[in-house]
């Protein structure tokens, strides 16, 4: 018991035994999750090569039912909905893959700032509490209000709404580890505050934060979808899963696949990342 414990503590932050996380992908759940994520990411990011004509090709066949040519049918301007959904997924995944890591890093640093200055740490926590006080979509709407609808607003909204959960996890680790002997020993030996934070506290915080990162991907996609559904997300003609749903609701009785297609993709992505989070969580707990 003692040996792995000390290994965990002394793991350097830029070498977080990747082999440990790889264990998550030896379980069925982990393999399925990873496969689905890789497949949908590849499909989304290779969309310009798979569908080189782009997402904005209009035709006279508007609101057609699904067929072998148009898997999801066509929209009100005769554009292929499958292609638009894949390009929409590309927008969503771009947003998520950019915003979630930023939120993770920023939230973690904000949570750990208490290691350098306890006062500042408390202040930061109060600020994070205020963010929590804004229920889901209202925070997003406030961001759109200040920045105007578009990519920037979505990115900022996702980053901000993730800060509290990452910050709290990091702070919980900080509070738990701060009183441990090895931290006190390091402090006694004259190790600087920043170094204690980065070398001793941060490695212990990484496991729960990586799991939370996978969980937060799902929330991030839902934030995009919710904001776009009310019309405050990406602006036309740029597709995202949410904007497709926003448009599709108008034609839901004539062309149900307009809504069904993006919804299924949304659920697929959410399930895949939830499974990934579960698999990572199991691995982390076993370590």
């Amino acid at each position: 018991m003692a040996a792995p414990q000390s290994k965990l503590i002394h793991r350097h932050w830029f070498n977080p035994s990747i082999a440990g996380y790889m264990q998550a992908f030896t379980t069925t759940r982990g393999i399925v999750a990873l496969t689905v994520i890789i497949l949908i990411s590849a499909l989304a990011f290779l969309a310009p090569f798979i569908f080189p004509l782009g997402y904005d090709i209009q035709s006279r066949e508007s609101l057609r039912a699904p067929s072998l040519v148009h898997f999801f049918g066509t929209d009100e301007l005769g554009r292929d909905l499958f292609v638009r959904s894949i390009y929409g997924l590309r927008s969503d995944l771009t947003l998520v893959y950019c915003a979630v890591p930023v939120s993770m890093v920023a939230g973690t640093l904000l949570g750990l700032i208490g290691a350098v200055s306890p006062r500042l740490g408390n202040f930061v926590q109060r600020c994070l509490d205020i963010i929590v006080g804004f229920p889901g979509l209202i925070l997003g709407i406030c961001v759109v209000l200040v920045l105007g609808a578009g990519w920037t607003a979505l990115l900022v909204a996702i980053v901000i709404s993730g800060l509290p959960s990452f910050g709290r996890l990091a702070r919980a680790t900080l509070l738990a580890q701060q009183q441990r002997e090895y931290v006190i020993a390091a402090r006694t030996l004259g190790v600087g505050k920043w170094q204690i934070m980065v070398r001793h506290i941060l490695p212990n915080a990484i496991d729960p934060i990586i799991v939370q990162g996978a969980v937060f991907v799902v929330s991030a996609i839902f934030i995009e979808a919710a904001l776009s559904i009310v019309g405050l997300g990406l602006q036309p003609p740029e597709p995202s899963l949410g904007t497709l749903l926003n448009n599709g609701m108008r034609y839901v009785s004539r062309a149900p696949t307009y809504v069904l297609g993006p919804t299924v993709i949304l659920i697929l992505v959410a399930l895949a990342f939830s499974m990934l989070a579960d698999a990572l969580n199991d691995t982390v707990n076993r370590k």
Partner: protein
Amino acid sequence: MLTFLLKKLPSVVVVAIASSLIAFILPRMAPGDPAVALAGSDASPEQLAAVREQIGLNGPLHEQYFHWMWNLLHGDLGRSFAMRRPVSTLIMSRLESTVELAALALMLMIIIGFTLGILSATLRHQSARAGLDILNTICLATPPFLTGLLLILLLGIAFPILPVSGEIGLLRDPLKGLQFLILPAFALALPQAAVVARLLTTAINSVRGEDFIDLAKAKGVPPGRLMRRHLLRNSLGPAIVAIGLRAGELLGGAIVIEAIFARNGLGQLAVSSVQNRDYLVLQALILGAVLVAVLIQLLSEITIAALDPRIRLES
């Protein structure tokens, strides 16, 4: 009880003032000038000044704020400059739709939450409990808009049982209105109900281990009465706190639900005001939303105090 309420008063006032400040400042941080939007981009500076004067956007910020607060306290919310109507008229015309949605969702959240919570705390069969647990987790993880979309596709399109788009006021035609209301309210309530259910189950299970439950059983209290009078009453605290806190989420979720079900409520008004940079409407809506959330939270605290004399007397 009165002293309990009086003690709560200062914090409510502080929150109200803070939220009025936020409601005032936030729209003004937005880029773009509403006067330009109103008068057109080729308006002369004099015209712009006149428009600003007309919509009350001239003068320093603190003067604008106090002017707004003063009018607010006298029941005047100002005029929407995008829709050229008094803000209060605009809000009143949309209020019924949102209040009906939120009220029914709140009721459903309590009913579904308590039913699921009590069921999963009392079911004997391991498999039934596990099944409920999975159901609960799915509900918990599914945001209202997704539930709404699935309900529309299932009950509106695949098996057209209920209308999925538009609304009819409950006051005009209660039966038809309820048909339009039930799906959006259900979608809105479900994830929050799952939270309530989970907290209630946990609380009941932990209270079950207490000595007074063994005593009651030994006295021969029948199971139904044991649940109502002994277990439930002592487990309500966390669930009621959750209901109070979740009411805010309900308001946020209502905006998306209104968009999906094409209901013309306050959420839609808020969205169009964001798009139009309609300061005064937004200010009123933000302030109103925060105050309603605070009041519901206060109400939940009062309920807990009424249920538990220890909290009432401590304060």
